[in-house]
């Protein structure tokens, strides 16, 4: 059974790979728009990557108002 912490870690790893930044530079409370310098469409791209990894479907609106990895992990965790 994965925990939110575990899910967060996997998201950080995937985000680092996806946007080609070092994993060490990202923390759970980071604002991913700011830290990764991405726009809302690029964030949706990441969501697609996360869906493939966790084998779930996340409607676009799940990202609504979410800008940090921890909250994103919670949203994903609730669908695992």
């Amino acid at each position, binding site marked *: 059974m994965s925990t939110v912490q575990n899910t967060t870690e996997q998201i950080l790893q995937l985000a680092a790979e996806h946007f080609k930044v070092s994993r060490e530079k990202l923390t759970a409370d980071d*604002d991913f728009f*700011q830290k990764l310098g991405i*726009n*809302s*469409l690029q964030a*949706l*791209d990441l969501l697609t990557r996360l869906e493939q990894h966790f084998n779930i479907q996340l409607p676009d609106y799940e990202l*609504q*108002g979410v*800008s940090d990895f921890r909250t994103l992990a919670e949203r994903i965790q609730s669908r695992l």
Partner: protein
Amino acid sequence: MLDLRQYNSLGEALRAALERWPDEICLIEADRERENVRMTYREFERAALPLACAWQDAGFKNGSRAAIIMTNQSKWLISAYSILFCGGVLVPLDYKLTSAEQLELLAHSKAEFLVVEYHLWRAMMQAEGFRSLGARVVLVTEAPPGADLAGAKRWEEFREERAPAFLPRSRKDAASIVYSSGTGGRPKGCVLTHENYLEQCVALTSLYPFWPGVRYLSILPTNHAIDFMVGFIGPFTCGAAVVHLRTLRPEYIREAFTRYKITYMSLVPLVLKNLERGLRRQLDELPKGRRRILNTLIGVNRALTRRRPRLALSRALLPQVHAAFGGELRALFVGGAFTEPATLQFFYDLGIQVGNGYGCTEAGTVITVNDFNPFRADTVGRPLPGIEVRILNPASDGIGEVATRSNMVMSHYLDEPEMTRETIVDGWLLTGDLGRLDGSGHLKLFGRKRNMIVTEEGKNIYPEDIETAFEGLPAKEFCVFAANYLWPARTMVGERLVLVIHLEPGQKITEELISRISDRNRRLVNYKRISGYLAWDRDFPLTASLKIKRGELADEIRRSLERSSVVAL
């Protein structure tokens, strides 16, 4: 040409269309690979009339206000028609606002009726202020079985077969209240009349016609003024079909073009840029030889379409490119924010027309749009038929404030007579945008006169709305400005927000203060964040009711400080 003169209201015009094309497809809704909905005009009417019965049973009257808060989907249009059928006034709200903001705007609009998607309703039920919700009848769509709806009803439950009474409206009656800004202090509720919409619809479809068989791809939510016009009223009054895509993910947008043989689509610059990037990547990946051939063909297309578009020729010259867009695309519409000329030119050279337009809610949606006669990447086109545009107090270079006059300009701002008087002067709507008209009547935009910014996603951000996020900050007073308002810049890109702080006597800017500012800033959605702060050492000029005189403060700041004084966060 579309003739809507015999209709007095949107409800009447739509009802006539439903009767005229009962067997044409009007709505398709796709969620990724899955198609959720496909319905004809007859089926659309059958879905909408039971809702109209429900409204009327609940006391809906001519002029009753009904809000819709939904993502991009078919039930938005069905609900809107049921409201217009009953003579109601639509209040389309942005589903992307926070629940608290939605509740504030609902209160401001005094909407008695509400249609809302379940996940948004769930968030709203948990928000502070939910108890004071004034809407007395709420219909919730897509609620899971057994969900607690706090007294709201399920949208899908209404299947009444009685015929509801159609309630007529007159052309000058309000058709909608559309909020063109957020909630900070003074919500701007633009009251648009049936005449505004009917006239705009005729003007737009004279340039970009719809007919049965045309398919419009909708990715913007229908509360967006552009989508309401070209993704609902335009196609419906002409018997065309609207394809709703419930995701903005680029891979599904690309797929929808080919799957549904799309004719038109509206998008914001951010999505257009994304399409451009994807296309450029595909072109770059071609083997060198093929790339060279393609470049030559693009060059030939560019030369042959210099004076006017020649769609059939472009499709024949560049079949792979056009096939990627489904082969039937006639135009993309882009607006809501500044689009780089290079992007427009890139698509035009491929034979894909991008109707770059300019407008605002107050003007009834579109003011100018490129008519491709000939194509101009450097302007936002000419005024629509029936719209006058002039430049107020032009400087020596011809640049001044853009003003517009037509029967598409809104009636007024809801409950804001003073703001209405300042915005509509002698029948002319002052847009607050800076522009210049050239000899051929094309409008070119150069920046903004108002204290606001527009994001690449087409969101209007009013600095006043953002100040609440900084309330309680340890400082004497503070104020948020658009940097280009403080220091006018002739540019439409890279707009920024600045926090001006006036500290208490003896107080210093400390790391702790900056970290508190940054913390508050992070709580804002990304596009609403300030990019820097400015320390100010004088009292802010205030009105008798202790409100900041923003214009005066901006003048003082402009006189004594330069843009370089802003400290980046």
